[in-house]
């Protein structure tokens, strides 16, 4: 972690993108995109999260592989919990 950090300019650009994406997600919510509203909202949220994680938390250029393993494993475990639970919740009425 003792490498030179990115110049401040990059941070301001990332910040600006984050603010813009916030307004976009709020605005798009008022449009009728059918089922895509949720997908768009979550996609934008994920982009914002990635920007924070990769650039603000320095995962992109100043982290070792183990850090990335920890992050990906945690997210993967969350998805296991959500996904396998859905095996029950989304199939309750099938065949009953």
């Amino acid at each position, binding site marked *: 972690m003792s490498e030179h950090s990115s110049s401040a300019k990059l941070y301001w650009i990332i910040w600006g993108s984050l603010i813009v994406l916030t307004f976009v997600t709020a605005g798009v919510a008022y449009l009728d995109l059918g089922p895509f509203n949720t997908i768009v909202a979550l996609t934008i949220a994920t982009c914002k999260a990635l920007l924070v994680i990769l650039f603000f938390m320095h995962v992109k250029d100043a982290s070792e592989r*183990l850090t990335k393993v920890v992050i990906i*494993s*945690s997210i993967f*475990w969350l998805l*296991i*919990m959500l996904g*396998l*639970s859905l*095996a*029950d919740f989304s*199939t*309750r009425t*099938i*065949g*009953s």
Partner: protein
Amino acid sequence: MATAAIAPEREDYLNKEYGIRSWLLTVDHKRIALLYLISITLFFFIGGFFALLIRLELLTPAGDLVQADTYNKLFTMHGQVMVFFFLIPSIPAVLGNFLVPIMIGAKDLAFPRINLLSWYLYIAGGALMLYAILSGGVDTGWTFYTPLSTSFSNTHVVTAGLGIFINGFSSILTGLNFVVTIHRMRAPGMTWSRLPLFIWAHYATSIVMLLGTPVIAVTLVLVVLERTLHLGIFDPRLGGDPLLFQHLFWFYSHPAVYIMILPSMGVVSEVMACFTRKRIFGYTFVAMSSIAIAVFGFLVWAHHMFVAGMSMYAALVFSILSYLVAVPSAIKVFNWTATMFKGSISFDTPMLYALGFVGLFTIGGLTGLFLAALGLDVHVTDTYFVVAHFHYVMVGGAVMGYMAGMHFWWPKISGRMYPDSWGRLAALIVFVGFNLTFFPQFVLGYMGMPRRYWDYSHSPEFQVLNVLSTAGATILAVGYLLPMVYFLWSMRYGKPAPANPWGASGLEWMTQSPPTTFNFDETPQVTWEAYDYENIPAPVPEEAFGD
């Protein structure tokens, strides 16, 4: 070569400092391990006391010892205390804390102060649990199922829930400490493939602690909120789903059983290698199986919910996954057996417990597969078959492993030898008592005796097996009390232990018994593989034991 004569003034971690402050404010991982040892033993006896009352009640078919509500509290408190305040911490907090740094050649864990904090969190959680017990207990079952726990029970659910919540952070921080230590603080030359399997086991256990415990933490928070604010997230009368609670609860509580068994398996690997004078057969398979158990263990939780109202499709998925999780455990059993083949076996106390583990864990594990079969589960779920199954793996498995570890490393921890004949006698009593207690329960369950029932007078034919079970429990209790007696005796009168009484491999046996505060005078440089038994002479019997 070190002889048995040891100068009494030699400094070690026990005599470095005296006084209660030096213990309560210690950051030495070895002292913290002993603090845990005393605390978990206390909770073991509390949990055991509840078990005794349960078995006394079940001597007769009628509910004549205690009231029905009281009986509900007995099995609840037995479960909560034993699971959360004894089994989950046991090996990691005592043997793990003591040995992990030494085995990898480090001076302490990565975060010694957080280690001490872990113990205080355990004590705080335990104090809340004790308060809940003393003010009347909890009657929801250790599983806290809703809406009984959130809406209907009028017992101390919130206090117990908060106690377990706080205790959970003790677990999380211990796991965090172990992972960082194992990654960052291995001595030069101690590569991953040279690590003792005890370390691999604790690494896998720590992954489970880190990823699973937060889920039960947030679940208990939701239960407390629901109970105090009448929310309705888990209450069907208010639009909630009780199965949501069960999914959240078991998402942790199933992997929790792997927190309980993996460290035991690590102990067994160490003990097996030493008392067969061979390296563990298939080291890589055993190491990878530990990781596999930790990972797969997260995929099977709803096998506790087959008849709870889940969809059939989900039941099918979880049944198949539950069969898969047995595979890495089986791999380990085969590898231990292969280790024994053509080994030079000696039946010291630790080995007796390890052998007991292998047999009893196999029975427990196989009966788990019976339960994973949907059709059979419908017949035996919520009967004593399940009770027998989990006691075979948790007591016949995890506790036997804990006893094996305590007897193996006691000379290192205390600097004293215990009398081996007493150790072997106690192991035998435990084995007999355990089987007599729990094998009849398989039969009872198959015959249809429901679990958590205080009165079985509708089926008086169950009495004979219940009497056998209670008799076994009494014998088992004696078996557990004996080590307390001779371990304490050994601290005063036991022969001083040499550095390596068993002639075992591993860095911990290259330090003095007991170790100094910083474990090593110089950082070890490791150039040998794990379980290098070809190059380690067996101990000469008269030198080793204190008999």
